């Protein structure tokens, strides 16, 4: 069974982004870019399934600019066998990405697709579910445990208030939550090895997908600033302030 793992290149989670003064977006010139953390968990899970002998091949796929090749190399350094870049300089919204991934799924016929639950740039939390719908596949989002047994997929999901367990038929789509695994550190020998793994580049037009979107961003602005309050010297003052000034207790 093949596993397909879509990965996204995003601003590194340690970078505090700045809104551009003209309100057209956030300034991502010269900031560190990394693989979306949830996608790293997805790659790790796929590689672990391969190490367990459940799957035979792990294919990483990324949709975006040329530099996404670096993200694919990272995935291959974790252990993906090969990479596919769907190259486009246009803004790709989740629905467009889901359509591109659907085309890749049709071609590669994976038994399982594992995605991060959410990208930390647009915070959309859509692509996995959209792909599942377009490919007519069952889904298990926010997975914290994945087992493949008897041709079925058992997934424990993080839901409000606790956990939920689902059984899905394969092929299926999984999106990862934080506790699914802890991704390994990428070693230098594996980074070197990853450079030699195959990486195909295709264009959206090759896949017959129109990536235009009907949602436009009119402006991007700074969130309202919350001013710092006061430091209180002791617990008694704190309680007094909460009771008499803020009147919240």
């Amino acid at each position, binding site marked *: 069974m093949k596993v397909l793992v879509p990965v996204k290149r995003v601003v590194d*989670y340690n970078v505090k*982004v700045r809104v551009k003064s003209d309100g057209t977006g956030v300034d991502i010139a010269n900031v560190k870019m990394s693989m979306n953390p949830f996608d790293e968990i997805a790659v790790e899970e796929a590689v672990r399934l391969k190490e367990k002998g459940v799957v035979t091949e792990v294919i990483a796929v990324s949709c975006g600019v040329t530099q996404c090749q670096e993200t694919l190399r990272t995935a291959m350094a974790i252990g993906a066998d090969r990479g596919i870049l769907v190259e486009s300089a246009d803004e790709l919204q989740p629905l467009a990405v889901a359509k591109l991934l659907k085309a890749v799924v049709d071609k590669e016929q994976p038994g399982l697709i594992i995605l991060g639950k959410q990208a930390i740039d647009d915070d959309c939390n859509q692509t996995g579910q959209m792909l599942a719908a377009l490919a007519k596949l069952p889904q298990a989002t926010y997975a*914290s445990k994945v087992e493949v047994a008897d041709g079925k997929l058992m997934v424990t999901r993080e839901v409000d208030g606790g956990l939920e367990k689902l059984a899905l038929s394969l092929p299926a789509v999984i999106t990862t939550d934080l506790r699914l695994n802890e991704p390994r550190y990428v070693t230098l020998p594996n980074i070197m090895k990853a450079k030699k793994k195959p990486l195909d580049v295709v264009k959206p037009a090759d896949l017959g997908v129109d990536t235009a979107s009907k*949602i436009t961003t009119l402006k*991007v602005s*700074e969130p309202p600033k919350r001013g710092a309050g006061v430091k209180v010297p002791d617990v008694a003052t704190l309680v007094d302030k909460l009771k008499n000034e803020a009147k919240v*207790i």
Partner: protein
Amino acid sequence: MTALVIAEHDNASVKGATLNTVTAALACGGDVHVLVAGENAGAAAAAAAQIAGVAKVLHADGAGLGHGLAENVAAQVLAIAGNYSHILFPATAGGKNVAPRVAALLDVGQISDATKVVSADTFERPIYAGNAIATVQSADAVKVITVRTTGFDAAAATGGSAAVETVAAVAASDSSSFLGSEIAKSDRPELTAAKIIVSGGRALGSSEKFNEVLTPLADKLGAALGASRAAVDAGYAPNDWQVGQTGKIVAPTLYVAAGISGAIQHLAGMKDSKVIVAINKDPEAPIFSVADYGLEADLFAAVPELVNTL
């Protein structure tokens, strides 16, 4: 122009997040209908009919709908989607699971985590963990939206008298089945609905200390317990207590952050709280930059003292 709200419910009652979503739907400008898709969910449908501002409740009852499986709920929404200009879900684990499926099958984009309805086609939503606010306009025929509940007041749960109309339930998909759930039973208020939240970070040091130190304070205040991602990752607190960018987004009247440094990802989840109290022994902790009241102290001494003083 009519908006459809997909109710969050447990078959017996309607969850609070539905009420905020109704408010967002009303702001879109037309009538508001509510879909209750469940199993033996008559009581939930009756409760939805009481919500102020709701014109009609659609009740679909079937075996595949009881546990909110995305495949079935999405199919149910699609079965009636043709009548609506807006389809709104609360941005809860359940809503976020289903909404993109509906959007994709309608071939429209989705607006996630809307915090403001500017007009019927224009919305505000946070991006980059709330470090920027995007104003987005949708030219799609149907607007599929998930609603960040902290951005909207709750509609009144009573006062309405909408008619309940039964709609045929879709057939259950055989590709996905529900095996079971472990939902923590607690007498505390639900995290996203709590008026007061006591939240702990990595400084607590262990699961035992987390409970020993913070539980008495939460009990005294009638508060829900929350945690930073660091505390959850370290296993001090369960994952569903996590407040932050990728956890719960909360906006209580009072948020007490004990031993939380205040990473931007955590601030993203709580900075809309009315009053923030930070207790931290590190004077440089970023949490102090958003706290209304900062107490620079060892939480292991300050929190018990706070319990005794209250």
